[in-house]
């Protein structure tokens, strides 16, 4: 690569970043020998390369190795090279690496709240980058800070510079991170799932910003994501990783439209379609759950503060019939989980009625509640925390039935049946949760909920923490169970694609209120409320037809 080709406009055509045949060792006792193996990726000027893969595929390790941020004792590169503008980063010393970080290459992270220092103002944190790498005077630094804040479209830059991270919203924090990463105009920006923690509408704005800034600054971007929707929106080229190897690489169009590797096909095939699946409804089916004006008001404040009231849920009226799935979609803070918790009576509603099979349970006493609990069961979001790590999964599954007087032997026999129902090995009942993967744990949680023989199953973001291929399996399982047991299901999600796949009716929530409510066909086909429309418009990969590729 010594004789770099020079193009007509005088720019060297050498890639900004070349990862060349890189292999990184994992510590002994890990599930495989190498974190990444013979990985070669290159990123050119003005190019966005997406690194896609499921959790554990090695995509973050690749990115961190470029920045020299790997825990050196546990993970060491054993072969290959990483070249930034021709300089091999594996051979330079720590001092040179520090010089390059921030100035020539920089990184933005998934969680902007934890990546920013909560005790420093945002302006001071950007200034720190400038004082470390440049000898600008105070006025010049200030001018640059305000300039970059302007460029990332933050309103009122002087006020933003004086704010602390906790005073900003998630999207604003991510903009600060981007400003910090780009203030020195690095040639390479590494973005590690920068929009995963954000709501869809914010995500769309941040993606737009990254693309815009990257174009004006000629930055090369290595963008790590697990979301094919995001890939479709932003990528010029795509590299797909599985088990530490790059299994497919090509332009975005090639990889998304004509994936050649079976793994890529499986991944793209597992992305749920936006077109709602129409199912015939039975209008005569019994109404299992109905809420009427359900409200939850949180009152804050204390002796010394003015009391303030937050309407987490405001007059929510929904209805679910036997064998049907109602989806509540909305962004974080929209009150969708509050509604689920009120229905499961994990929190007490402030006002309104919750009818379960006709009984009002909104204000049921503790004693009556105990009998009601078995009729509503809930599957939580985080499969790593919803099972007690110190108890065998069998003990977790039989806990509920045994609370209501079922004998141990009978409960275990039923647990074995349920394990088969959720497609797990019944012999695994005496294992502990840490011996299962995320998807398997989520199935165990479903089995635990089903052990109570509920009338209503609530899935509170139950597939959000799962990889897309596992998510497809769990969705499939939930649908199968709903059909077989003729369950009523309440499905809480922020993911419109998932909602389109599983729901018969959909309620869109915004700031505690249901702004749109109808059958999935109506809501997805002809959204009436402005908020619903903006939500749909923001969904990543909207214009791209996924699911057309057979796995």
């Amino acid at each position, binding site marked *: 690569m010594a004789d770099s080709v020079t193009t007509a406009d005088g720019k060297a055509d050498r890639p900004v970043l070349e990862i060349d045949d890189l292999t990184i060792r994992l510590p002994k*006792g*890990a*599930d*495989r020998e190498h974190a990444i193996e013979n990985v070669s990726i290159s990123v050119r000027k003005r190019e966005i390369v997406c690194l896609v893969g499921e959790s554990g595929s090695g995509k973050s390790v690749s990115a961190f190795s470029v920045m020299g941020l790997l825990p050196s004792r546990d993970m060491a590169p054993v072969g290959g090279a990483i070249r930034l503008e021709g300089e091999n980063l594996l051979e330079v010393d720590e001092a040179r690496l520090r010089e390059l970080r921030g100035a020539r290459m920089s990184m933005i992270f998934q969680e902007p709240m934890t990546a920013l220092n909560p005790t420093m103002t945002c302006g001071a944190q950007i200034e720190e980058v400038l004082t470390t790498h440049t000898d600008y005077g105070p006025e010049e630094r200030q001018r640059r800070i305000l300039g970059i804040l302007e460029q990332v479209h933050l309103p009122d830059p002087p006020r933003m510079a004086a704010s602390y991270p906790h005073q900003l919203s998630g999207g604003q924090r991510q903009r600060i991170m981007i400003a910090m990463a780009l203030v020195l105009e690095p040639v390479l920006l590494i973005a590690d799932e920068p929009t995963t923690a954000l709501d869809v509408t914010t995500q769309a704005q941040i993606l737009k910003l990254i693309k815009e800034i990257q174009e004006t600054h000629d930055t090369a971007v290595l963008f790590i994501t697990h979301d094919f929707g995001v890939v479709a929106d932003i990528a010029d080229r795509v590299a797909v990783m599985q088990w530490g190897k790059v299994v497919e690489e090509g332009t975005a169009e090639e990889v998304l439209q004509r994936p050649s590797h079976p793994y890529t096909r499986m991944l793209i095939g597992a992305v749920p379609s936006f077109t709602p699946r129409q199912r015939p409804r039975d209008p005569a089916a019994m109404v299992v759950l109905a809420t009427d004006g359900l409200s939850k008001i949180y009152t804050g404040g204390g002796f010394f503060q003015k009391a303030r009231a937050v309407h987490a849920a405001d007059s929510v009226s929904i209805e679910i019939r036997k064998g049907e799935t109602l989806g509540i979609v909305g962004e974080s803070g929209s009150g969708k989980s509050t509604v689920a918790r009120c229905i*499961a009576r*994990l929190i007490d509603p402030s006002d309104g009625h919750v009818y379960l099979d006709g009984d009002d349970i909104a204000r049921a006493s503790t004693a009556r509640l*105990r009998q009601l*609990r*078995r009729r*509503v*069961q*809930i599957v*939580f*979001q*985080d499969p790593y*925390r*919803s*099972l*007690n790590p*110190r*108890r065998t999964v069998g003990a*977790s599954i039989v*806990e*509920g039935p045994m*609370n*209501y007087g079922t004998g141990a032997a009978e409960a275990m026999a039923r647990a074995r049946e349920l*394990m*088969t129902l959720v*497609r*797990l*090995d*019944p012999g*695994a009942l005496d*294992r*502990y949760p*840490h*011996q*299962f*993967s995320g998807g*398997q744990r989520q199935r165990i*949680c479903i089995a*635990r909920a089903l*052990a*109570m023989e509920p009338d209503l199953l609530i899935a509170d973001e139950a597939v959000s923490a799962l990889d897309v291929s596992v998510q497809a399996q769990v969705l499939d399982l939930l649908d*199968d169970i709903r059909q077989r047991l003729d369950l009523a299901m309440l499905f809480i999600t922020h993911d419109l694609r998932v909602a389109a796949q599983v729901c018969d009716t959909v309620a869109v929530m915004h700031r505690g209120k249901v702004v749109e409510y109808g059958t999935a066909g109506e809501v997805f086909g002809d959204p009436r409320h402005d908020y619903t429309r903006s939500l749909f418009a923001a969904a990543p990969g909207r214009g791209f037809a996924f699911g057309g590729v057979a796995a």
Partner: protein
Amino acid sequence: MTSPDLVDSAAQAAASAERPGLLRQLSRNPSVVFGTVVLLVMVVLGLLAPALDTLDPAGIDPAWRNKRPGTEHTITLPSGQELEYVHRMGTDSLGRDLYSRVLYGARISLVVGLAVAVISIAVGLVIGLLAGYVRWLDGVAMRVMDGLMAIPGILLAIGLVSLWGAGLATVIIAIAVPEIPRVVRLVRSIVLSIREEPYVEAAISVGTPLVPILYRHVLPNTIAPLLVQGTYVCASAILVEAILSFLGVGIPPETPTWGNIMAEGRVLFQVFPHNILFPGVFLALTILAVNLLGDGLRDTLDPRMAKRF
């Protein structure tokens, strides 16, 4: 529907590799090994004191006061028998054999340490669990604990001793009470974070009543930190007992405890330092052992804590 997925063997292998047995893990930690060995030696010395060539620790011999370590002399036992005896650690200002007193003193120190740790942890655990889990109780219990913490421990001990008179039980209670608030705070903070875990919510939604939730899901999470806290309480209790005895408000002076022996020797320290040196070394070794054991336990039971340092 396909056949049931099997738990992948890789995950299983990794799981069994990360738990090589708690005992084996503990036995590989030098702090734990050192602490345990020293403590065991102290326990054996205390228990077997009568068999280890000791005299009556309270036996006064005015003719043989303040002898230096290694002094040999013939003593007449109460039975009239004559005995050639070496005072390995010398004698104190009343002619009592220091070696015997130090060994018997180990008994009191260890009993005080253990009893205080057990009492403060048992009481603190119950209050902490309830304060952390039962909302309305939280404020009341914690303010009482704050109040208790505001009283200096030693002053409380002095007050109780002057109220009830000196004695082993009084001293134990006097030392245990000020330790309780710290245990309560620790337990409460663990409970507050565990009660928000989805698996506790899951247990509520399958109808598990309060007591089994505390017992099954919350309590097990407190055991490791409490074990560690217990060793620190134990070490500080042994020390406080020695301080109280030294100040003359602890266990009656004729009972041999390390604090009492040092209090006795304090007047003549410049001339006969052995009176303070020997019990001091035993006390320091014991405290060191208990603290090392605590550090080692913390590192082994909670690897996240260990990596931070």
